[in-house]
C-alpha cells in the first residue's frame, strides 16, 4: 500500500532522510514515533504528496504521490497537527467537501458528530482547537479513504475525547485500511497502535509488531543496579531500576511504549541485534 525505496529528502541544505526504505501494509494502525525534528510529519507529507522526495521511489496505492492524482487524493486523508477550517457551518462544509470523496459515508459522519457532541449550526472557525480536531477526525473517517494519516491527533483533546478517539480509530481500522498515527503522546496510543515505527536521524530504526516486542523484549523491576552489559536500557526509578532486556525466558510482559521508545533511541543497535535473533545487549 505504501512502498518507499531508497528515498532521500532534504529541506534546502538540511538532509532529513537518507536512503530510507519502508513498506506499510493495509489492516494496520501504525504508530510513527520519533524525537522532535526526526521527520515524522515530513514523512506523512511525502506519503500524501505534499512534499516531494529528492531521490528514490515512492508508491502509495500504486500512485506516485507527487502527481497528486485526484483518484489518489480521494483515497488518502491527512489530519495535520495545525489546520485551517473555513467559516462554514459543519453541514455546509460537508456539502462543499464531501462530493470530492466518492465513498463519503454521510450516516457515519453524522453519528461521529453526535458522538463528539459537535454543534452542526456553529461556524467551524469559531470551534475550539479540540472541537476542530474532532470535526476533522469525523470528516476523515467518513471519507472512507483507504489511507488515513494523523499527525499528533490527541494534542488538544480532553481526557474523555482521547478515550473516544481511541475507540473510534480502533473501529475505523478495517483490513483494507492503513492508518498511520504520528505522535509524541505515546501513552495515549497504548493498545491502539500496532506495529510501531521509530524514525531517528533520517532512518527507520525500528518497525515491529507489538507481539514481536513482547516476545523479544522484557522489562524488569530491579532493586539494585544491574551490570550494564546485561540490559538494553536502564532507567532509575524512586524504588529501584527499570531494566529492558532481551526476553530469553519467554516472559509475556508488555513493555510500555515510552520505555520501548527510550530503549530503541538510546540503544538502536542492541535492539536490532535482539530482533535479529541475538541475545546479547550489544553496543550498550
Amino acid at each position, binding site marked *: 500500500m505504501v512502498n518507499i525505496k531508497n528515498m532521500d529528502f532534504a529541506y534546502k541544505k538540511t538532509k532529513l532522510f537518507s536512503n530510507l526504505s519502508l513498506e506499510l501494509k493495509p489492516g494496520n494502525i501504525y504508530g510513527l514515533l520519533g524525537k522532535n525534528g526526526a521527520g515524522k510529519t515530513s514523512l506523512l507529507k511525502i506519503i500524501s504528496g505534499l512534499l516531494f522526495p529528492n531521490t528514490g521511489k515512492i508508491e502509495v496505492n500504486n500512485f506516485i504521490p507527487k502527481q497528486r492524482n485526484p483518484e489518489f487524493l480521494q483515497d488518502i486523508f491527512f489530519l495535520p497537527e495545525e489546520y485551517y477550517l*473555513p467559516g*462554514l457551518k459543519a453541514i455546509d462544509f460537508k456539502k*462543499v467537501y464531501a462530493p470530492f470523496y466518492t465513498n463519503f459515508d454521510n450516516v457515519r459522519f453524522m453519528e461521529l458528530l453526535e458522538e463528539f457532541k459537535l454543534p452542526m449550526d456553529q461556524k467551524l472557525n469559531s470551534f475550539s482547537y479540540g472541537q476542530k480536531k474532532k470535526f476533522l477526525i469525523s470528516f476523515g473517517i467518513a471519507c472512507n479513504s483507504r489511507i488515513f494519516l494523523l499527525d499528533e491527533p490527541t494534542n488538544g483533546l480532553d481526557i474523555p475525547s482521547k478515550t473516544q478517539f481511541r475507540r473510534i480509530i480502533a473501529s475505523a481500522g478495517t483490513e483494507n485500511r492503513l492508518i498511520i498515527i504520528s505522535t509524541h503522546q505515546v501513552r495515549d496510543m497504548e493498545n491502539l497502535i500496532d506495529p510501531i515505527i521509530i524514525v531517528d536521524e533520517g532512518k527507520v530504526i525500528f518497525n515491529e509488531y507489538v507481539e514481536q516486542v513482547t516476545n523479544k523484549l522484557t522489562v524488569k523491576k530491579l532493586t539494585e543496579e544491574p551490570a550494564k552489559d546485561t540490559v538494553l536500557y536502564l532507567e532509575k526509578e524512586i524504588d529501584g531500576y527499570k531494566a529492558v532486556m532481551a526476553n530469553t525466558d519467554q516472559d509475556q510482559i508488555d513493555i510500555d511504549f515510552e520505555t520501548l521508545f527510550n530503549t530503541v533511541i538510546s540503544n538502536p543497535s542492541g535492539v536490532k541485534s535482539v530482533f535479529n535473533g541475538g541475545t546479547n545487549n550489544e553496543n550498550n
Partner: protein
Amino acid sequence: MKTTNIISPLRLLHLFKRDILNNVNTTLIAFGAVTAVIYLISAISAYTNAPSGELYFSLFTNLLFAGGLIVTSMVFKEMHKKETAQNYLLLPASNFEKFFSRLLISTIGFALFTLIGVTVISYLSEGVNTLIFKRHNEIFNPFTKMVWTLMAHYLVAQSIFFLGAVYFRKFHFIKTINVIFLLQLSITIITALFVRIVFFDLFEGLFKIGDTSLIMQWDKIPLNTSSFTNLIKTLKILYWLVPAPLFWTISYFRIKEVEVKNAI
C-alpha cells in the same frame, strides 16, 4: 493516465462551488462597495449638470483592469499560505482542474461579472438619477467593439498577473508590477547600451548624437510600405496569440511543482 484524472466536469463544478462559498462574503462586500462608489460618481456627474457619455466605459475599464489584475494576483493565495496550502493541495482534484478553475474565475468569470455588473448598475443608477435630478448619464452599452477589445486586452494582461500569482508566495500584485517595471527598464538600458556601443562613432559625448539628421523622425518613416504593414500585423498576431497561452502554460506547470514547504 485516465481522462477523468485530468479533468472531470463534475469535480470542476465542485471546485467552483467551493470557491464561491468560501469567498461569498468577501465578494458581496466588494460588490456592495463598488456599487456604492459607482452610484456616487454617477450621481455627482448627473447633479453637476455634466452628464457624461463615457462615464461607465471609463469605470468599466478601471474596474476590469485594476480590479481584475488585483483579483488575479490573489487567486492562488490559498496555495501559498501556510494555514491553507495543505487543504488546497490535498483537495481531490487534479492540478489541471485547480489551475483551470482559478483561470476561468479570474478571466471570463471576472470579466463577465464586471460587464454584467456595470451594465446593471448603470441602469439602476441612471434610473435613480432620472427620478432625482431629472437628467442622467449615458447608459453603459456592453455590446460595443471597444468593450470587447478591452476585454481581450485584459486577458493578455491577466496572464502576466496570473503567472505572478502562481510564482510569488506573497505580495503577488506588487511583485508582478515590479518585475514588469524591471524588465522594461532592463530592455531600455540594454538597447541604449547596444546602440551606444555599435554606433559609437556617431556619438558626441555620452548619449548625444552629433549628426541631427540621424535622429529618427516619425514623419519620415514609410508607414505605408507593405513590409511595415506586415511587421505590424505579425506583431499584433504575436501579441494576441503568444503571451497569454505561454504564461498560462508556465503557470500550470508551476502549480504541479508546488510543495507545502513553499508555503509561508
